[in-house]
């Protein structure tokens, strides 16, 4: 897959995507939920504070008024029980979408997710179905600290039977969410808070973006970067500046942690010979580790350099912005890593870093970069 996935460049009705409206990621999710609920009366929402004024970072705004309390179900603070209730409703033919304000809250529900959501279809020899979506928000910035900031996709990606998606672009946020709701398997959806602010061209009405994995965000022949979630935006910015010194990055948005479709990644690494993964979690036992391992297994002879993982520094997330510098990969550290992988000259790397420092300006490290407004 050397060119951008056409599903990302065309609206659902075949209109060029550039003609679609520019809206932000949070609104795209809200539209996806509303569209799915309008289409199918068995779709319902559950969440803590689903009806509160903040309405889940705006992603459920207005849905209580539109669909009523029976389909926008307020949830007690009881994650294991309520995820189990959603699984039970899904087993009974409803299509619940349950939202958790932070991915950490899902740790309280891990028993239900791992045992009942992931296995009911399998253990019943295909008779039971669990058409369930569990939205989990990944926090970052403004002192979120060690228990409001983790990106735990590799936990859920470990289990056969779960699908795990991490849309980056607003169009995918809506199209993949609708696809997840219509899917008969349980889908874990991990949304990065900072992406909620980003804008993109999003078609109106119903469309689905297949849960089939990677999309090329930017074609290139020198190095393959596989990114997840918000990290794609940092990588995209690095790639744009690296191109100015003649280094062409092929940036692949993984989109699906499980099932993991390696074919487009192996094809890309086959051309570029270099792989960098940029993770929104820790490197050890993580998504990037799995991608690197599979590339090493299946495309070893194509590699011109050892595959490399970039991820969070190897400690829990500190709250103070004084300790955050260096914790997250960013466009600068990504560009430096690409420079090492591709053997760029010190002067080229220096020029790229200088440009990125200038572009980033004096943006505080604990707030989303204004650059990421889009459109994409």
């Amino acid at each position, binding site marked *: 897959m050397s060119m951008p996935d056409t599903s990302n460049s065309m609206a659902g009705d075949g209109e060029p995507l550039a003609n679609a409206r520019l809206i932000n990621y949070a609104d795209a999710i809200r539209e996806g939920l509303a569209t799915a609920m309008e289409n199918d009366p068995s779709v319902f929402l559950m969440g803590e504070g689903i009806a509160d004024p903040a309405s889940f970072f705006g992603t459920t705004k207005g849905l209580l008024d539109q669909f009523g309390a029976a389909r926008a179900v307020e949830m007690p603070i009881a994650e294991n029980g309520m995820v189990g209730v959603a699984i039970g409703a899904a*087993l009974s033919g409803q299509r619940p979408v349950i939202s958790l304000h932070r991915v950490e809250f899902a740790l309280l529900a891990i028993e239900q997710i791992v045992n009942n959501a992931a296995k009911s279809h399998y253990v019943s*020899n295909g008779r039971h179905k669990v058409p369930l979506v569990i939205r989990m928000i990944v926090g970052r910035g403004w002192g979120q600290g060690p228990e409001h900031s983790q990106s735990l996709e590799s936990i859920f990606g470990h289990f056969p039977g779960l699908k795990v998606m991490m849309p980056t672009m607003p169009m995918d946020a809506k199209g993949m969410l609708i696809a997840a709701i219509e899917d008969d398997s349980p889908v874990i959806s991990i949304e990065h808070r900072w992406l909620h602010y980003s804008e993109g061209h999003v078609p109106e009405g119903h469309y689905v973006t297949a849960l089939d994995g990677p999309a090329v965000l930017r074609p290139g022949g020198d190095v393959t970067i596989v990114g997840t979630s918000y990290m794609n935006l940092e990588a995209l910015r690095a790639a744009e500046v690296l191109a100015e010194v003649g280094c062409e990055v092929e940036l692949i948005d993984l989109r699906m942690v499980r099932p993991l479709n390696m074919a487009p990644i192996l094809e890309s690494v086959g051309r570029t010979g270099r792989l960098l993964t940029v993770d929104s979690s820790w490197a050890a036992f993580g998504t990037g580790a799995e991608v690197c391992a599979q590339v090493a297994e299946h495309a070893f002879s194509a590699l011109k350099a050892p595959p490399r993982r970039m991820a969070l520094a190897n400690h829990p997330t500190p709250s103070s912005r004084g300790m955050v510098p260096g914790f997250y990969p960013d466009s600068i550290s990504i560009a430096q890593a690409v420079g090492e992988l591709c053997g760029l000259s010190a002067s080229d790397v220096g020029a790229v870093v200088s440009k990125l420092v200038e572009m980033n300006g004096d943006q505080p490290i604990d707030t989303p970069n204004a650059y990421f407004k889009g459109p994409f």
Partner: protein
Amino acid sequence: MLRIRLVEEAIAARYVDQEMRCPVHLSVGQEATAVGVCAPLRPEDKVYSTHRSHAHYLAKGGDLKAMLAEIYGKAAGCCGGRGGSMHLFDTSVGMELSVPIVGSSIPLATGAALAMKQRGEDNVAVVIIGDAAIEEGVFHESMNFAELNKLPVIYVCENNLFSIYTSLNQRQPDRPITDLAEAHGVASGQADGNDIEAVCSTMAAAVGRAREGGGPSFLVFETYRWFEHCGPNMDNHLGYRTEQEFENWKGRDPVAAARAALIQSGAGDEAALATLADDLSREIDAAFEFAKNAPLPGPDAAVQHVYA
């Protein structure tokens, strides 16, 4: 009840052949709760069970051949051999599923009741749990939500006094178990779990209430397992229960009590019950032959049905 007793005894007798190659948790001594709970239910009502699920599966109308084939690990089993004894289900009769993690099925039944309410049905969901399950947080989480939303779910506690070898008084303070439900505002009931009539009438009242929109109930039935926690043998020699206690409960055999009641009321006589036992034994022998002779699933089947 007699059918369940004979099936369980046959499993115990044949387990030594090592052809049933999965753990079995037998319900001998607990038959009255299974039958009394399921008797007032319609096929459309859904039952959720635990690791000790044979009696529940049969009482709800599950297919004996499919159950035994599952325990034998055969493709004809109700889970195609993927579940074994602890994952019995037959959705065609409303035996929805069994899961072995203590308390894990409680929210599933609650969610089924939510779905029933959302669709405007008047069916009920029933989850049968043991006395240890009420120690799990998910019991309280589910009950709180069910009462809040007046869901048609009935939480049935089969209190057999032990969690493996740990007695109730080592795990819980001395207070009525039903107080836990009352604290959540959930209606509760209690009856002798070895008295089929008492279980059945208590259950029927809760079912009626749930169907009419009255909300959830929590019912406690005291009963006792005769065999070891898991397996075909007795385990009294371990010393976790006294021989005296065991004999006292055996003296309250629910099957014998039901038999005596039938004869006393004139609804049955010795000859009719003997004929029934013979018919059941033939059916059970045939089901075992079916299960033993059925083919094992191949390795190819193991990779199917990961995703729907």
